[in-house]
């Protein structure tokens, strides 16, 4: 019987698990932890918190289909208008490492219309095999059609791992696929490794907006699926001498889901809004005092080739559109450099940007929480600091 149990011989009654439990399901009786099974959600927080390994989650062994004939590490090559998203190259780089550890091949899945020639680009970036489905139905991304295409590819070729970018497209697509295939999916991973002994994928992801990290496995189900956060892993280099196999597959028109019609795509007028792709983001917050002052953020951003972000306060004040908002109710970003100007650093903002590689904060309040996560900071008046920085980088 699956469930959770306390090993009384190991429990020292320290009470750490009580504090770790999010649903108050643990109490101390005679200096031993006791779990109220009607409250417990089996989340495992107490198991990780116990230094004495006194709490265990027991799982029944699942008898599933034979998983040993699943081979290959696949990457979903997301594209729009025939342009392959850079996150696909980051995934290929990682896939090559994982495939090396498993002794298998790297596959790329390319869906679209008139995209065949892009298969070579994926091979140059490290794919050994590219599975191409070329169909007018796949011209635009529609979750239902893309999902049907990939589910059928998986059933035919049986990959052991599938990676997709944790983009709006990747996240909504693979959730559908994982349910159809009855397999495990881990969202928004920041690290992927192979357990070399068990030959399984160890997926590391932030939860609680990065305040905790979780390691997740799907040992008994195939393929093991994960979405990977953009910009966390380096891109694979393009080597035009690489060769590989292109496997053309047919999209069966019976798979098309006619309940959903793509009507139009409207590119945001401001070209600098794509926070997901930006290497540098300059964000403005309440400290700007007025919407008109976003101009100095924009000028500075332009001088260093950065995208413009903002805190929630600036969006709520109507200074800048919602699409720029970074944080819990906005976007989660992970650029190489994040520059927060006049942003105090409420936890809701921090969870959206704290995994950026380098964080720079400019704020007049030395006690602002943003300085706690900053690698570099300037305590001062942003209206004086930013123009100096802009001037410097314009000349550079």
């Amino acid at each position, binding site marked *: 019987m699956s469930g959770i149990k306390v090993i009384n011989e190991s429990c020292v009654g320290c009470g*750490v698990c009580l504090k770790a439990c*999010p649903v108050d399901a643990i109490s101390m009786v005679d200096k031993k932890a006791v779990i109220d099974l009607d409250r417990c959600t089996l989340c495992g927080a107490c198991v990780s918190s116990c230094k004495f390994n006194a709490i265990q989650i027991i799982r029944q062994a699942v008898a599933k289909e034979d998983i040993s004939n699943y081979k290959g590490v696949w990457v979903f090559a997301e594209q729009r208008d025939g342009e392959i998203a850079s996150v696909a190259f980051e995934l290929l780089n990682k896939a090559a490492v994982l495939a090396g550890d498993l002794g298998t091949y790297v596959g790329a899945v390319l869906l679209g219309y008139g995209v065949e020639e892009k298969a070579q680009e994926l091979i140059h970036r490290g794919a050994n095999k590219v599975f191409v489905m070329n169909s007018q139905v796949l011209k635009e991304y529609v979750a239902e059609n893309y999902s049907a295409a990939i589910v059928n590819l998986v059933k035919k070729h049986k990959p052991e791992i599938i990676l997709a970018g944790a*983009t*709006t497209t990747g996240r909504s697509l693979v959730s559908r696929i994982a349910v159809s295939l009855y397999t495990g999916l881990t969202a928004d991973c920041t690290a992927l490794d192979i357990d070399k002994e068990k030959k399984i994928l*160890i997926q590391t992801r932030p939860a609680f907006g990065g305040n905790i990290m979780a*390691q997740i496995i799907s040992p008994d189900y195939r393929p093991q699926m994960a979405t990977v956060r953009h910009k966390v892993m380096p891109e694979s280099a393009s080597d035009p001498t690489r060769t590989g196999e292109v496997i053309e597959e047919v999209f069966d028109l019976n798979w098309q889901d006619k309940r959903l019609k793509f*009507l139009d795509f409207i590119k945001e007028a401001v070209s600098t809004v794509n926070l997901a792709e930006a290497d540098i983001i300059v964000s403005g917050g309440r400290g700007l005092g007025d919407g008109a002052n976003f101009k100095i953020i924009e000028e500075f951003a332009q001088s260093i080739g950065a995208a413009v972000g903002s805190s929630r306060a600036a969006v709520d004040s109507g200074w800048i559109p919602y699409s720029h*908002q970074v944080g819990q109710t906005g976007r989660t970003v992970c650029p190489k450099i994040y520059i927060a100007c006049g942003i105090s650093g409420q936890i809701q903002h921090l969870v959206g940007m704290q995994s950026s590689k*380098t964080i720079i904060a400019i704020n007049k309040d030395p006690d602002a929480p943003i300085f706690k996560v900053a690698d570099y*900071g300037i305590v001062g008046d942003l209206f004086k600091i930013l123009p100096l920085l802009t001037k410097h980088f314009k000349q550079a």
Partner: protein
Amino acid sequence: MNIVVCIKQVPDTVDVRINPETNTLIREGVESIINPFDMYAIEEGVRLKERFGGKVTAVTMGPAQAQDALREALSMGVDEAIHLSDRAFAGSDTWATSLILAKAIEKIADVDLILCGKQASDGDTAQVGPGIASHLNFPQATYVRRIDTVHLDTSPKIMIVERLLEEGYEILELSLPAIVTVVKEINEPRMPSLKGKMKARKAEIPTWGNKELEIEADQIGLDGSPTQVVKIFTPSQKKSGKIFEGEPQEVVEKLINEIKDIL
């Protein structure tokens, strides 16, 4: 229009702190709230009902205390609430959770639209909405920032929505029944009215367990969940950064000197 809103009770991130000695998350005394994104889903459901008539039902899965989230939803104008709770559901990952919610929606029957927040603020997976869609074989639109035209007199009923993407937005036409997950931009959630609070306090909230949903035991809980959490840990704390104070010209030069190699 028969609408179901799926909500989740989560710890309020504002209260979440890290114990610096043990490096663990302190959850003691942390208040539970409705996942912030679900508030927009509730509001959108109530607005659609106000425009087109019909009924909004809020559904949540969780332990007894999750009823508080349902009462809050009722106070905002939701008509009915259903609490999904069973020891057999504990340990469900997103696969099993979306199955349990899908089975509840099937039991509610004749649903036109399912609304969810784009993701929950504790798990951040964004998997359950599309997961429900896949279990029910409904079309889905995720990250919706606007529900535009709704035609209820056509067959099938249709709806036009705007999806917020990284580099812009797209416009989709969906046949109902469908699932829509929403982003913050879609609306401004209302405050509960006094009348709404009174109604919520008195409302009967049925609890459905697996006796009601009749799902195969090996598809729910730990046994039905493909993923397993092997370890939870707190990321190593960043060492404190270099903070400069002084004359603007001087501190700017110091900063440029530090970052010139990474730019």
